[in-house]
């Protein structure tokens, strides 16, 4: 392994600009003549818009335009869409209500935009926005996802506020298995609603070139090409070839920046109307009521076991709250990203899952780090842990008895696992966590008055999203391949254009490691280009831990073509047969001789084209690949959480965290560990701290960072992270993906640990001190104060 090749903990190329304040995030971009946009947003969860009076706002200094939903509709700007079709059990298509970028007739959640003010400065726009008078007729709101069917109907297209009633699996076979079970474990679970809170707020800057009719959008997006496609083809803003989307440095996404939001549509429209660039940057309060939220499931789950603890079947019933409108990929999250992972790491012969997706008067809900898979893992790993306790079987032993041990393994819920070794990651985690010493630590903690508990989560996820035909057959509106273009310059340096996008993942480093390793050229001589639809022809963006498994595979395929072409050039230079050329360590050698040509010489010769005739070989050295994976990848592993709970206050401290993950090939272990740390932190946040709370009128009570509890440094421990490795057979590098694992595995590990400590299974997330204290009181009424 070279110092910068695959497997090396190379320090990141992108860091220099970030640690010196030279990053270029969307809000840092300034265009000549730029104006600022501020949105007027609904204070009501559900209301009719009776009238909007913009006259006072328009008369204020600096105000250039005040635009409303009526004008947007008059200009025939289309509505936003959800791009994944789900059919209900009865065969009917999901009920997708129109989502206008500015509401014209009615508002459906607090924060729904009704007008936009464009002014010379931010302060002027903000002042004017306060003067826009909106006459609302408030309507009763539907907030609780479990009570939507009887509530007032939000959208005409969706009776009983139901988007779909979907199912997966064989209900009758599951019923039969349950009838023969020796033991059934039942759980009611609320998977708490979360706010992604990337630290960079969303922003959009739009510019119109009246001379060419081209629009340019700088945007905080994880997938600029899909954004362009939707805004062109569905919203109808401009033809695709006249719209350029640039995603510059993006300050975290976690899913929330995948989606196409109203604000970018409105900025593009307004820029064309006012003839000047229009910039909008969310403040955090706006992010809370406009960024798509995550999770929000209400679930009843049951696991059937035989007398030996062998799993027979699982039955899961979930209500998924999708909020006021269907966000871009919202429909897929509680269906094909959720129910398909309910088999976990286990051989479960039958699984049946029903999911009702519903509208409520809350912010739209869509993919958030893990997207469906954390919800599935929480169901599976809580069921397994509780079943072990109820049957008095060691939870490690129960898992081992049910692990899938041979591959490929076809689960009853679509997925075909292709490789893994669940015992290996479990064993390594048990050692790293010193589980053997746990009882001693528990006794020692008890002497200090603390309750110590141990919780496991042996999770699986489906990443490397995704084979296009497979997702197409499940309703996805796009293919999920990835593209790469490798451009070799005459001096031998290389630019790689990728359709993925990095917003913290370090692609500029890891992708360069791959190229450096393969071509034998210095790491410094490789640049990665992403996030600009004028530079990269097309790509599907970054989410679902796909950039390594799919994006880097596309680079491998393009590099294969580069090598083949370069060999032809080298053959002409060395006056040898093409088949006799060997490429190794950046050098082309004629086999069996000492005749060779260096990489840089071959690159130069490809361009000067003096050694070959144009009829035989085209000059230049540039190749493209579109790579479509043959399967999902299946990262899996074991996380072990050890907690101490204060008997008197219910305060939980995480005292040890061990994560052992199988991500297949690891390109840069430093970056991979960082991804794991961040994911665990978000999962611990869900388990202990975070919850988006709406009151009965639909006001977001946790609408700022003062009210919504983000994990701080002192809330978290340091993490012990280890790796095992089985290669992913479905892609050339054997990569499985690592971006979401931490967030998927960790909530169940935390709750399993706390419930172990306190001896009470009923415990809501987030398990705040108050929640744990109340549970302790229920468990031991005489002991809790």
């Amino acid at each position, binding site marked *: 392994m070279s110092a910068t090749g695959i497997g090396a903990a190379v320090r990141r190329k992108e860091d220099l600009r970030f640690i010196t304040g030279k990053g270029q995030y969307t809000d840092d971009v300034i265009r000549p003549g730029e104006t600022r946009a501020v949105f007027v947003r609904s204070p009501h969860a559900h209301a009719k818009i009776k009238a909007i009076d913009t006259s006072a706002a328009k008369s204020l200094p600096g105000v250039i335009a005040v635009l409303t939903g009526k004008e947007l509709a008059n200009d025939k700007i289309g509505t936003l869409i959800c791009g994944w079709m789900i059919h209900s059990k009865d065969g009917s298509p999901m009920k997708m209500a129109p989502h206008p970028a500015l509401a014209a007739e009615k508002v459906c959640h607090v924060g729904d935009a009704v007008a936009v003010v464009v002014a010379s400065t931010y302060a002027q726009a903000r002042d004017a926005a306060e003067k826009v008078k909106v006459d609302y007729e408030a309507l009763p709101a539907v907030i609780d996802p479990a009570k939507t069917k009887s509530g007032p109907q939000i959208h005409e297209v969706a009776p009983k506020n139901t988007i779909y009633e979907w199912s997966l699996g064989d209900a009758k076979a599951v019923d039969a298995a349950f009838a023969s079970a020796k033991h059934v474990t039942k759980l009611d679970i609320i998977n708490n609603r979360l706010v992604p809170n990337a630290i960079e707020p969303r922003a959009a800057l739009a510019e119109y070139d009246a001379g060419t009719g081209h629009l340019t959008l700088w945007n905080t997006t994880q997938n600029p090409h899909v954004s362009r496609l939707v805004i062109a083809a569905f919203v109808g803003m401009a033809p695709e070839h006249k719209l350029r989307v640039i995603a510059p440095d993006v300050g975290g996404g976690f899913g929330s920046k995948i989606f196409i939001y109203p604000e970018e549509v409105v900025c593009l429209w307004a820029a064309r109307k006012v003839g000047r660039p229009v910039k909008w940057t969310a403040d955090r309060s706006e992010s809370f009521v406009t960024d798509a939220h995550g999770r929000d499931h209400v679930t009843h789950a049951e696991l059937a076991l035989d007398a030996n603890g062998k799993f027979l079947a699982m039955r899961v019933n979930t209500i998924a709250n999708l909020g006021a409108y269907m966000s871009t990929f919202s429909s897929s999250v509680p269906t094909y990203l959720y129910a398909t992972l309910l088999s976990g790491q286990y051989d479960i012969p039958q699984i049946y899952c029903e999911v009702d997706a519903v509208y409520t008067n809350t912010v739209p809900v869509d993919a958030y780090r893990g997207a469906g898979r954390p919800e599935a893992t929480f169901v599976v790993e809580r069921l397994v842990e509780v079943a072990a306790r109820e049957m008095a079987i060691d939870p490690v032993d129960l898992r081992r008895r049910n692990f899938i041990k041979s591959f490929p393994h076809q689960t009853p819920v679509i997925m075909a696992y292709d490789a893994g070794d669940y015992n290996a990651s479990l064993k390594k985690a048990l050692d790293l966590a010193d589980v053997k010493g746990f009882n001693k630590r528990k006794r020692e903690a008890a002497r200090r008055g603390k309750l110590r508990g141990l919780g496991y989560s042996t999770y699986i996820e489906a990443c490397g999203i995704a084979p296009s035909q497979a997702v197409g057959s499940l309703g996805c509106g796009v293919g999920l391949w990835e593209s790469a273009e490798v451009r070799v310059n005459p001096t031998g340096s290389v630019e790689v254009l990728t359709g993925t996008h990095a917003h913290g*993942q370090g692609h500029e480093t890891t992708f360069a490691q791959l190229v450096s390793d393969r071509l034998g050229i210095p790491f410094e001589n490789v640049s990665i280009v992403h996030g600009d639809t004028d530079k990269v022809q097309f790509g599907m963006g970054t989410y679902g831990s796909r950039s390594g498994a799919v994006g880097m595979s596309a680079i491998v395929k393009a590099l294969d073509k580069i090598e083949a072409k370069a060999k032809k050039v080298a053959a002409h230079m060395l006056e040898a047969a093409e088949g006799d050329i060997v490429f190794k360590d950046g050098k082309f050698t004629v086999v069996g001789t000492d005749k060779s040509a260096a990489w840089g010489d071959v690159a130069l010769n490809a361009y000067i084209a003096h050694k070959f005739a144009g009829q035989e070989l085209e000059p230049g050295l540039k190749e493209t690949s579109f790579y479509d994976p043959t399967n999902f990848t299946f990262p899996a592993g074991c996380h072990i959480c050890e907690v101490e709970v204060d008997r008197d206050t219910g305060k939980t401290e995480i005292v040890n965290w061990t994560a052992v993950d199988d991500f297949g090939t690891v390109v840069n272990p430093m970056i991979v*560990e960082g991804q794991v740390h961040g994911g665990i932190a978000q999962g611990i946040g869900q388990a202990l701290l975070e919850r988006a709370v709406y009151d009965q009128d639909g006001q977001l009570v946790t609408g700022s960072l003062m009210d919504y509890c983000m994990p701080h*440094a002192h809330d*978290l421990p340091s993490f012990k992270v280890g790796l095992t490795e089985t290669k992913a057979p479905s892609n050339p590098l054997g990569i499985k993906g690592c971006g979401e694992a931490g967030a998927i595995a960790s909530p169940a590990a935390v709750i399993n640990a706390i419930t172990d400590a306190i001896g009470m299974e009923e415990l809501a997330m987030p398990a705040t001190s108050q929640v744990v204290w109340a549970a302790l009181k229920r468990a031991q009424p005489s002991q809790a104060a």
Partner: protein
Amino acid sequence: MPGVSMTVNGKPVTGDVEARTLLVQFLRENLRLTGTHVGCDTSQCGACVVHIDGIAAKACTTLALQCEGAMITTIEGLADPDGPLHPMQEAFREHHGLQCGFCTPGMIMAALDIVRRRGNDLDEHTIREQLDGNICRCTGYHNIVKAIAAGAKAMAKGGARQAAE
């Protein structure tokens, strides 16, 4: 509009600002020093931390006019453009203490203030407690804590000027 004068990263600057203009707006919009970020509107996230007269402050909660005559240091002022990085910057890179980079300038400026107040030999508990005013969503803080401990030690070894001077 009233005028304001201050020294930013060693250079005297002046500008006309509204009374309500925040220091962070003055830095970002008037001076085009966009390394100082805004991540929230309630002074929780710390992406905007700069040093005012050597002490860490949230530039989103400071009026530009309050800084009349003050010495301001931002992330751009920690190292000379042609010189070596500040040891704390170097430590963040070496220990992978950043991912998306958005919270990073504030983290580094806050870290220097922790060193100023608590010295160069920082234990994990102290760093975690002292980072209460800064939020990172990417790293889980694990590597930020390591970076700050290492950066503080490297600063003690000398050579680099302290940002909080």
